[in-house]
């Protein structure tokens, strides 16, 4: 282990001391997350994806301006197209995050983690299904406020769980 630590570049060949968790967090540690935390995390992720979508639109318009400045005008975009594109971006983003680290940026901010029923990281198909379900039926999130186990619609259908996980 010592040689492995040394190869990781830790100072003095020893791993850094883990930061202590806040005293107030200990009662919530590993508990299912409630609807407020989930909604805030979803809002952060939605804002992030919308920002990325708007940036992509502005970038596309900029390229069009550079290509033909004289006839340039912002193209009209149907709302349905915009919703579909943003939904697709959101689904891809959620899938990638849940299948790799188990948490999106919103989950990281709110100290949440998405796992399967065994507490393991979601498979990519499992994550894709949960992402599509969350994008298509976003109101299913509020089922977590009614159930005793704080499970949303996607958690009930796909047997997943969102728990408090303070990142150390």
């Amino acid at each position, binding site marked *: 282990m010592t040689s492995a630590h040394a190869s990781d570049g830790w100072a003095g060949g020893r791993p850094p001391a883990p930061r202590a968790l*806040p005293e*107030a*967090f*200990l*009662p*919530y*540690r*590993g*508990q*299912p*997350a*409630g*609807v*407020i*935390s989930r909604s*805030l995390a979803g809002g952060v992720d939605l804002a992030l994806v919308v920002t990325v979508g708007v940036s992509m639109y502005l970038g596309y318009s900029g390229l069009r301006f550079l290509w033909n400045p004289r006839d340039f005008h912002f193209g009209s975009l149907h709302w349905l197209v915009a919703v579909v594109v943003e939904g697709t971006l959101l689904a891809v983003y959620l899938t990638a995050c849940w299948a790799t680290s*188990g948490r999106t940026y919103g989950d990281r*901010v*709110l*100290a949440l*983690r998405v*796992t399967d029923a*065994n*507490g*393991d*990281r979601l498979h990519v198909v499992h994550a894709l299904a949960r992402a599509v379900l969350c994008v298509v039926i976003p109101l299913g999130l509020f089922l977590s*406020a*009614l159930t*005793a*186990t*704080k499970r949303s619609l996607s958690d009930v259908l796909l047997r997943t*769980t969102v*728990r*408090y*996980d*303070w990142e*150390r």
Partner: protein
Amino acid sequence: MGSITHAVVLGVAVVPRSEAEMEPAQIPVVRADIPSPRPAEEPPPAATGTATGEQTDTNADASPESLPPVVDVLLGAGAGLFRLAERSVHRVSNMARPLAGSLAAVALRPPGLPERLHPETQLRLLAERGRRERVTVEQSGAELLRVLVPLIVDKLLDSIDMMGIVRRIDLDAAVRTVDIDAIARRLDLGAVFDSAPIERIVTRVDVDAIAERVDLEPIVKRVDVDAVVAAVDLDAVAARLDLDAIIARVDVVGIAQEVVEALDLPEIIRRSTGSMSSDAVRGVRMRSMQADESVARLTDRLLGRRRSNPDHGSSPDGSKDGLDDVGAR
């Protein structure tokens, strides 16, 4: 005392009575009636002959103002006779000059005598001898003066109170008569400085010793620094500064790098931003968790569910929570 007779001859007062008949205080005094210098502080003598008051009148008769004009009469008579004789001789000589010249020529060079026997030749020889004697006497006199004069001058100087003379001289009045401005105008200071060995003088001056002896503190106290600063035109000074050149010579980048390295600015920024973000995120997390708890209690109350104390560390469905494992991953 009353038999004393006085005679005045040529301004000299003589007391002709025998000295044996007189008392010591009455010894006759022969004095020249020339005013002699006497100290100013001494009162004028009351009597010059004796100390008695009877002689006061006699001494008054011997003063210059009371002398009988006998001397003047004799001198005037002699002078008149001399002028009369001079005019007579002059007239006679004028009349006899042509005749005397011919007679003198014949007398000095009598015909028939050899030239060496002429009176003129003899006179010339006598004149030559006299000239030689004169020169010899002059040389001897000069030699004698050269020997005597220093001795005499030394004796004179020894006998003279030079400091007394100097004290009697009004040096201030003498200096006031000197036109120093005219002297200064006539001075060629440039030539003086050119000829002066300034470098040799400066090299011999011990400036350190002078500086050590100078008490600068009272001098500095007397300097009105405010007035000096007020008189300085800082704008003009600043206008003459070439700040670009100064800045170009300063290694600003190097200084900035040294300051940044000394401050470890990245570490400070990382700590400050990290602590701020962690504090903000911690607040959001804890508030959201408390909000979740409140919503859950409200829902349980509304739905009439009994809420059991959560068993921390275990999942709600009773299975062992795998969060630690997840966290480990």
